[in-house]
């Protein structure tokens, strides 16, 4: 790799006129947001977008600051100090990993150089989803298929609020169908508090999160034609389950949407049951699952790491690469003290705090937001946000579409790829 990947690919952003952008603020990567730039480097979202986008785009460009042991210094010094720290470390951990494809490439190279373990801030969810594909697999679909083909969409305990707010607008709205123009209907199963704002499900099965897996198993039994004996499975009226089963069967293309991160430890039973339901429907009809996730660069990180090394995240470099989806949980390595140095990467500014365990004087933070940590940790470098401060490629939630995001402002902030590559060169 050449030393820096600061891009010449972006045409210079024009100062004031509104323009279409690709939003990096969640893994939907909506490419229809209309942005108007302001003098401080912030942007107003003038069309499309969502509350989250409006709030994130409103952040002005932070100053390009570098701190070593709490004292302001140059980027050069920060990089040298980071390299010294990693050289001394026995078992470094590179985590957070909230970055783009180029940043992940550089992180993998750095991890190989200093024999680090690699994880992501959302590593727990990534590991759960990976385990599912490694044990049973699934039949999945992508955003445009849902937008234009799905005539029935079932939302299962989904969090479509803070993240993925535009999903309803883009994929659940009135349908210009590729198969036909019959109206799309939407079902929801889960706690009422998680009803998405802009989708008005016409079939609601209210159910506490803890009982969603149970409800899905009852639905599966219903679909298989041997309903459970219980009169109110998961506290739901029998009739509503039967109706839901009928809707799923009647759909020409049913999609079941889940947001694995919102499910926590219930991810595996819920997602597993959803996949069983999809398989059952696919015996005679058509259905697919759409998992929404992969925020803060998680999908970019996991896709890139997988093609470069053969393994999804939670890998370590020794004589060969080891893949330990449990043992290499970054939080555990830090808590136990097994990791004695940390590079924490937060280029989107959503995960500024590393998990506890690593002493401040052995912590390197590359973050997109100004942070108190700058005063205490060994090295703190303010970095640019992918698709805002520099050209970036990000992988969308469905792991199919990768978008190229042009630079939006000239902040002079370094990219993760640039910083990590320079650290690696000093090792």
């Amino acid at each position: 790799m050449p030393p820096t990947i600061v891009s010449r690919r972006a045409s210079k952003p024009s100062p004031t006129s509104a323009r279409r952008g690709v939003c990096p603020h969640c893994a939907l990567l909506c490419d229809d947001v209309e942005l108007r730039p302001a003098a401080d480097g912030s942007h107003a979202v003038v069309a499309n977008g969502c509350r989250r986008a409006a709030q994130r785009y409103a952040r002005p460009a932070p100053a390009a600051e570098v701190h070593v042991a709490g004292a302001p210094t140059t980027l050069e010094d920060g990089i040298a100090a980071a390299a010294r720290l990693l050289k001394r470390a026995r078992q470094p951990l590179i985590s957070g990993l909230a970055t783009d494809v180029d940043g992940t490439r550089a992180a993998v190279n750095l991890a190989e150089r200093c024999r680090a373990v690699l994880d992501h801030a959302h590593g727990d969810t990534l590991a759960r989803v990976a385990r599912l594909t490694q044990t049973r697999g699934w039949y999945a679909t992508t955003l445009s298929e849902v937008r234009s083909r799905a005539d029935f969409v079932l939302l299962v305990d989904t969090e479509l609020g803070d993240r993925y707010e535009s999903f309803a607008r883009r994929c659940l709205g009135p349908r210009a169908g590729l198969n036909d123009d019959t109206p799309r209907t939407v079902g929801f199963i889960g706690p009422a508090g998680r009803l998405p704002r802009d989708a008005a499900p016409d079939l609601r099965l209210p159910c506490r999160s803890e009982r969603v897996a149970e409800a899905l198993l009852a639905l599966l039994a219903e679909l298989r034609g041997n309903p459970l004996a219980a009169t109110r499975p998961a506290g739901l009226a029998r009739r509503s389950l039967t109706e839901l089963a009928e809707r799923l069967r009647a759909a020409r293309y049913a999609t079941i949407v889940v947001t694995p991160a919102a499910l926590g430890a219930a991810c595996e039973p819920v997602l597993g049951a959803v996949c069983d339901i999809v398989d059952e429907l696919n015996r005679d009809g058509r259905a697919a699952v759409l998992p929404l996730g992969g925020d803060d660069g998680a999908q970019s990180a996991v896709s890139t790491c997988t093609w470069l090394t053969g393994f999804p995240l939670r890998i370590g470099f020794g004589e060969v690469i080891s893949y330990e989806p449990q043992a290499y949980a970054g939080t555990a390595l830090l808590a136990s003290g097994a990791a004695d140095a940390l590079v924490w990467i937060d280029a989107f500014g959503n995960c500024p705090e590393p998990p506890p365990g690593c002493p401040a004087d052995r912590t390197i933070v590359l973050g997109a937001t100004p942070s108190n940590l700058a005063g205490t940790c060994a090295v703190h470098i303010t970095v640019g946000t992918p698709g805002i401060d520099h050209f970036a490629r990000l992988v969308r939630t469905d792991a199919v579409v990768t978008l190229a995001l042009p630079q939006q402002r000239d902040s002079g902030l370094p990219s993760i790829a640039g910083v990590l590559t320079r650290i690696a060169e000093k090792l």
Partner: protein
Amino acid sequence: MLTRLKGGRLYDPENGVDGEVRDLYIRSGRIVAAPADPAEANEVIDVSGRVVMAGAIDIHTHIGGGKVNIARAMLPEDHLGDRVGGRRHPHAGCGHAAPATRTAGYRYAEMGYVACFEPAMLPANARQAHLEMADTPMVDKGAYVLLGNDDFFLRALADKRDPDYLRDYVAWTLGAAQALAVKVVNPGGINAFKFNQRKLDLDENNCHYGVTPRDVLLALADAVRGLGLAHPLHIHGCNLGVPGNLATTLDTIQALDGLRAHLTHVQFHSYGTEGDRKFSSGAAPIAEMINAHDNVSLDVGQIMFGRTVTESGDSMRQFAGSAFASPKKWVGMDIECDAGCGVVPFHYRDRNFVNALQWAIGLELFLLVDDPWRIFLTTDHPNGAPFTSYPHLIRLLMDRSFRRDMLATINPDAAAASTLGSLDREYSLYEIAIMTRAAPARSLGLKGFGSLGVGARAHITVYKDDADREKMFTCPEYVFKDGQVIVRDGRVVKEVHGATHAVHPEFDRVIERDLDQYFDRYMTVSKDNLRIADDEIRDDGRGELVLHATVARP
């Protein structure tokens, strides 16, 4: 700097050189004419007694893109036995059926390959495929873009849009996806599966659009012809893996009616229904048909015994095949109104009648198709076997007694049902050089590849001659890429990056208006964001984009 490769035995079919002892001279990455005085060479590498060929080219290997990455992620057990550390290769990685991009690049180079082509790139997934290929070092690369299952094309065909319109769309897609050629997979069938159609024959209607695979094939083959692409339409036909599909394959060749086409992994499309098990070899009639139709080329998609993973855009057929997944897991997808995919791990067993016969059918095809310029060596990596089995496959083709020994070890009923034991043909080194070098270079229009002639790129592989052809082809003594030694004694000694080959045919920009509307209405990415800019491939100097000229034909 002038380098002299002294005394090698050259197999250079592009220039009709069959085993002659000649010197080669290299300057500035090219093969140059011999100087008046051989002493002008600054460097002499003695390769006397060695076999010298151009660098090899794999015309069909799944090295990058969504389904490849799904296979990697879902199969840690595939890699755990084949991890490669940073001592062995410039970067650590892993093999086997679904290798890391880097490991794939190193291993291809270590076998003497200098270029690899990803045959199934979805427009929606093209940017990722190119990122993966950019991270595949050592070899040049390129991709064939998948068309014929996307709703835009099928709708246009159903609306009876004229051929110019379809051609403009194909041209726009090639440029937007930075592709070198066009591939169709189960024409219209992946799309039909989204409408719950489970089977689609050559003359059966897609239940929604009312167009047949024959319509799709002819429209695409004609568009490719009209655009003047070097590589003809790359066809993964209907009914993959279905007993009796030999009839479909024969009909497909006839349907082309003289239009040029490349039929891929034909082994999977050469099955009859004879015998007690209703599964038999169709290699003989298919080879006969191919021998009689010089508008058609093929690659075999040979299977080898062992564990692998099948990765295909053919969601319809992979759904059917998922019943045989080993281990029991699989991933299927419907993708972006574009196509789909299915990833199914698989274990080919030599004691299993069907698998053993598949193995024999592939070899029968190799031995029964007469013209090595029209048949390419592939395992459809990793669908038939990982590409690392090529040296073994070459030995099977070159060594009759070895082949018979292997035949004696497979399921005896399959061995008895195959004519393989009676086929005496042995491939010569010259023919191997045709099918792995000269012919793929010609088929893809790669100027300067597949040749040892003056002016060619100095992509050269030097092998120690060895009666054990597997050993010989596993471990070249030297591999030169653009004149540099990149492999020595089967080990990477220099990491290089390789260029990306693509075409940007001209088209009438009016099509972009319709595409803009279509994308805005149906898709979740705008047309312009799907498009990959040239500079993304160049990537600030990390990559190189080689654009091949095309000349439109009326």
